[in-house]
């Protein structure tokens, strides 16, 4: 818990920095219209105008650079995995429609330029969202009825991370099986100190003697966040996806933490929430506060991870965007120097966020399984 104020202030600082940067670029590129269009992304009228504008730009042979759009496109999810230039890796689209499942490749949209007629409906890619098209117009009610279970860029990147983790840790486990009682070697000696660190510096001090039961979850969440953070820092395929900076992923992780904490809560934990040691007439205030506390702790985890990683990506992309905003090569060294600095900082943040998420999870578990007060 001692670390908390530091990280809270850090998150605030990062959010301030990236808000200022966004504001700065908005002014410089006269991008008010784009910010508005992002705010009202669902408005088809604005979108039409925007598309027309983009089309107009393309006709002139030189697209106007819009850093907010570029950055937001990167931060958000996508149905294609951009590789280089105009080459993208098409990803499978899976749609749950009231009529049944639709399954096709996102390559059929040709970067959103073409509509695609599937088994049940015709679909169009609008702002990288799959929408149902009826008679040439986007049908919002029909679009609301379909649920998108596509393997998007973030899902694919997450699968890559999962495969990498399985390869690393199963091979390390094999090394332990082969070299029983011997000193670690190779990859094993790289991983072992980290596992020991999670056990001795995160799990044991916070959970106590019941730590062993929670080690698999803590280790998995630690390495999952860390490896995804690191893959997110790699600018080229198969990295570059903003996986841990996506609220859906942090939501799932914090939800699992919420479940683990509360399903393992003992009677002291529940007594502390439902029958706190205060005069009975304070119960109408205390119990709701404690119940909010159950939700707010994982909620803070969700926001912290999301905000840190997203802020990092935004800062790096903003600095790169400077080159294109000034349309000058002279700014490139400055930009690259700053990006290098930020990338090194992000390496630290990648570890730190994995650490803090795991540490706080262990702390909450420790509070839930503590034997006496």
């Amino acid at each position, binding site marked *: 818990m001692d670390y908390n104020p530091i990280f809270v202030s850090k998150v605030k600082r990062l959010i301030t920095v990236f808000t200022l940067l966004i504001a700065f670029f908005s002014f410089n590129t006269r991008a008010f219209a784009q910010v508005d269009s992002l*705010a009202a992304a669902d408005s088809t009228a604005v979108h039409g105008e925007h598309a027309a504008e983009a089309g107009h730009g393309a006709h002139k042979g030189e697209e106007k650079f819009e850093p907010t759009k570029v950055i937001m496109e990167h931060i958000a999810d996508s149905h294609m995995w951009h590789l280089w230039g105009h080459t993208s890796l098409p990803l499978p689209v*899976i749609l749950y429609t009231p009529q049944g499942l639709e399954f096709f490749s996102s390559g059929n949209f040709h970067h959103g330029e073409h509509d695609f007629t599937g088994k049940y409906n015709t679909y169009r890619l609008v702002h990288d969202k799959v929408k149902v098209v009826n008679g040439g117009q986007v049908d919002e009610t029909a679009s609301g009825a379909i*649920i998108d279970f596509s393997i998007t860029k973030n*899902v694919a990147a*997450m699968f890559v991370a999962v495969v990498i983790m399985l390869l690393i840790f199963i091979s390390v*486990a094999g090394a332990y099986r082969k070299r029983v*009682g011997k000193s670690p070697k190779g990859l094993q000696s790289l991983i072992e100190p980290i596992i020991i660190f999670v056990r001795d510096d995160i799990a044991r001090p916070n959970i106590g003697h019941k730590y062993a039961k929670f080690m*698999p*979850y803590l280790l*998995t969440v630690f390495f999952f966040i860390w490896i995804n953070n690191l893959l997110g820092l790699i600018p080229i395929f198969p990295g570059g996806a903003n996986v841990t900076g996506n609220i859906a992923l942090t939501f799932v992780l914090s939800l699992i933490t919420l479940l683990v904490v509360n399903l393992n809560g003992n009677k002291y934990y529940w007594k502390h929430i439902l029958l706190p040691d205060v005069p009975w007439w304070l119960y109408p205030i205390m119990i709701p506060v404690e119940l909010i506390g159950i939700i707010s702790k994982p909620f803070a985890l969700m926001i912290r991870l999301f905000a840190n990683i997203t802020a990092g990506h935004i800062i790096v992309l903003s600095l790169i965007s400077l080159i294109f905003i000034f349309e000058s090569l002279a700014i490139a060294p400055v930009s690259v120097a700053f990006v290098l600095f930020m990338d090194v900082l992000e390496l630290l943040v990648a570890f730190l966020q994995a650490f803090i998420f795991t540490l706080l999870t262990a702390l909450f578990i420790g509070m839930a399984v503590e034997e006496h007060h």
Partner: protein
Amino acid sequence: MELVTPSIGLVFWTVVAFVCLLILLRKFAWKPIMSAIHDREQSIDEALNKAELAKQEMARLTAQNEDLMKEARAERDRILKEAKELKDGIVGEARKQAQTEGAKLIEKARIEIENQKKAALAEVKGQVSALSLEIAERVLRSQLEDKSKQEALVANLLKDVELN
């Protein structure tokens, strides 16, 4: 707002991926790794404890050896001292005995000498008395050859007797 709205598809796939990862890693990675680390730590602890015990045992044995050495040295010193005392005693005894023996011999010799001397003196006395008797006989014979002298002598002797 879109940035902070979790999309259902991604939530679904994250749950699937993460739960699968958790189950697979727990079964195939974390359990063997954690138990291997635990076992190894225990064996290291055990080995260290054993080494500590061995060290203590060594220290104990060394101390014991030291004690034994000390004891042995003391024993040796004691034995040497005893031997010296014994030797001194024996030598003293022998000397005393020799002295008494010598004294006895000297005494015997002295007595013998005394005896011899007495015997010699006695013999000398006998010879002297025999010799003086012979001289006296010869003197008397020569003096009492004529009658007058014999009578003068008798008269003389008688005179002495009267006096008594």
